[in-house]
């Protein structure tokens, strides 16, 4: 399951080698969140990471983003070890991360503003991407005036506007309702296909994973270990009703169920010992 690294580096955009993460080292709350995980992401690939709640998906993603250093192991991006955040890898979070005091267009152009691009140039570029995500008429609104789905679209526009190659997405649609989520999934696939980005997408929804992914990596319940890597070779757009989809779903449900039960039992145990939830 663990892939063979270090050979054709050029082929891979992101490589995780035996990455582990311990939170709260040397405190009584020490938690091993990620345990020796290795995988790689190819350029232009749509990789989905799935796993039960609390298994360390967000932890893994924020290490790739460079927001947190791994406790052990190594993460490379284009052959370079990751030493901190970089505009090469944009992250889209579960909640909207638009800055509430800026208009939508200023938010989208914020990455360019940080780079020192002048106002006119960055607004021009931002407008282009706002159009791309269908928010042109909302450019001068403020985030709180947008619906949840619109906010996430603006976040995506911000990432695109910076010209990022890699999009890291941490359950970006989890806070949306069913219908909006479905629209956003289709929207994301359109964007991804058009722009040829590399996407690492975290979720715990099986259907979402199958609907989106080129390849799905399944993590075990905490501590997150690599359980399985599944390539989905269905043509897009994928039909949720198709038997192929069904087959994949059943496989994942099987995998997840065992992990969920494990996680649940563990949690029950913890609850009995420590009643703070």
């Amino acid at each position, binding site marked *: 399951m663990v892939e063979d690294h270090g050979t054709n580096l050029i082929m891979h955009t992101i490589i995780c080698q035996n990455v582990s993460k311990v939170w709260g080292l040397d405190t009584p709350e020490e938690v091993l969140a990620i345990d020796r995980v290795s995988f790689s992401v190819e350029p232009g690939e749509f990789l989905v990471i799935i796993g039960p709640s609390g298994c360390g998906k967000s932890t893994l993603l*924020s290490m790739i983003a460079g927001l947190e250093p791994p406790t052990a192991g190594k993460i490379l991006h284009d052959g370079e070890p990751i030493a901190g*955040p970089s505009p090469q890898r944009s992250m889209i979070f579960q909640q909207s991360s638009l*800055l509430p005091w800026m208009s939508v267009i200023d938010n989208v152009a914020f990455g360019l503003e940080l780079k020192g691009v002048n106002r006119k140039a960055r607004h021009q570029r931002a407008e282009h991407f706002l159009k791309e995500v269908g928010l042109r008429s909302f450019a001068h609104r403020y985030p709180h005036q947008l619906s949840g789905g619109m906010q996430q679209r603006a976040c995506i526009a911000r990432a695109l506007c910076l010209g990022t190659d890699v999009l890291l997405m941490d359950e970006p649609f989890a806070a949306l309702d069913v219908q909006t989520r479905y629209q956003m999934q289709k929207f994301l696939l359109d964007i991804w296909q058009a722009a040829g980005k590399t996407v690492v997408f975290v979720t715990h929804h099986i259907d979402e994973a199958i609907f989106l992914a080129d390849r799905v990596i399944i993590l075990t319940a905490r501590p997150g270990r690599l359980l399985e890597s599944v390539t989905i070779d269905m043509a897009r757009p994928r039909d949720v009703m198709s038997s192929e989809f069904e087959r994949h779903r059943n496989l994942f449900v099987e995998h997840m169920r065992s992990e969920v039960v494990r996680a649940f039992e563990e949690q029950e145990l913890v609850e009995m010992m420590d009643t703070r939830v």
Partner: protein
Amino acid sequence: MQQTPVQESQSTAPLQSSSLSERKRKARIKSLKSLVQQVLWWVLSLSLFIGLWELLSALGLLNTLILPAPHQFIAEIANQEQFMSLKVGVERTGANFAALTAIVATLTRVLSGLVLGFIAALLVGCLAAYFKIFGNLTLPVITLLAPIAPIAWIPFAILAFGIGDGAAIFVVFVGIFFILTLATVNTIRNVDQLYINTARVLGASRRQVMFKIILPAIIPDLFVILRMNLFAAWMAVLAAEMVGVNTGLGAIIMVGRQMFNAKLMFLGMAMIGVVGYLLDAGFAQIQKRVLWWKTTAQI
């Protein structure tokens, strides 16, 4: 909670939602009605209160020397010749007050102190958060000085700055500065990590995070804290005016006291109430504007 009997003919017909304009008209009438009702209750409540007060006075059950009836202390305006004249910047002479002068004097003191305190606290707080060593060195002292009530600084302020605006402004400044500095540091610590991470992922440097994220993120919260301390500042200035700085609203009630003139005292209290209310309302307005990007629910 009452159950109306079902009329067959009505219940099977679609419950048509009325048209928008019709709806708006009804809504207007309804809100107008409730407004009128509101006003009536206010009038009733106030008349009852004042009526009772006047009645008790008239019956001799209240010592009007101590608790003059409303019509008495409002009539005191007439005795204060210049009271309602539009003089600003004219100091009082003897027991003569120009109400406007007093209000302007007091407000100037409160606002100058607040503005100076806010700016200074923001500066020191940000520096303390940005340069850890500076913070480590200054914050303990500030923490120790913060609980000294601004009022306790009045005698020192008068000694150091003489009688006048300087002392009053200093008292407000000192009352706001320590608390707000600590609040700044604290608020900076509580800035949503999500915003900071967003900026970092987009390539922001430490300085950029400070100026582009932390500063805009904390200003509204600090303003809320400033507003919470407005009342203390207001009280401190009034106290200073009562104790030494002998102009302004605080001085009016003090003169009332020295003259054994309860009517002037109550007149002064009424003014303090009104001005205090307007001051707070003004700040609430500003706060709304500063906080435009937060929905009311969040505030």
